[in-house]
């Protein structure tokens, strides 16, 4: 079982994010991830990247499930906020 703050830290430790939101109930988490690392990557590869970063926590079931609500580049994120 993890807190949303821990999940945030796990993601941020492996991926340089300009914006990161995590919500959840200790088992199922939802994340909005904005990172330059996503540039030029298809959505499937962006999701793979985030899942790879928290692979250990997913395998140990510390994080039971993570839904990626958004995986955007800073440009895409800014456009959408505008």
């Amino acid at each position, binding site marked *: 079982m993890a807190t949303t703050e821990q999940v945030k830290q796990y993601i941020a430790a492996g991926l340089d994010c300009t914006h990161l939101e995590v919500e959840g109930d200790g088992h199922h988490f939802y994340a909005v991830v904005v990172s330059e690392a996503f540039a030029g990557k298809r*959505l*499937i590869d962006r*999701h*793979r990247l985030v899942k790879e970063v928290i692979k250990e926590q997913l395998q140990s079931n510390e994080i039971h499930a993570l*839904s*990626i*609500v*958004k*995986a955007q580049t800073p440009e895409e994120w800014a456009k959408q906020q505008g």
Partner: protein
Amino acid sequence: MDIQETIKQTVTSSPVVLFMKGSAQFPQCGFSARAVQIVKACGVDDFMTVDVLQNPEIRQGIKDFSNWPTIPQLYVKGEFIGGSDIMYEMFQSGELQELLKDIAQA
């Protein structure tokens, strides 16, 4: 025939193929139900579904094929697109409608 070969043929046998739990009429999992709804919302009513609960070899085989651990899995023109999260995100941005517009019924 080898299971991976069977899957390869299956994903290219129809323009839109959804590997899911249950059928389009009776999905056996909330994520699979959501995936069906998203495809339909893009205007594609006639698409192929494969119920992985009917075949344990396919259930495991499709995960190996895509190197993706969960079901449902959407394939468009033989290409793996993603699971229900990715489908929803692409639907929200309009990307999925764009991808399926040639296939969507007028």
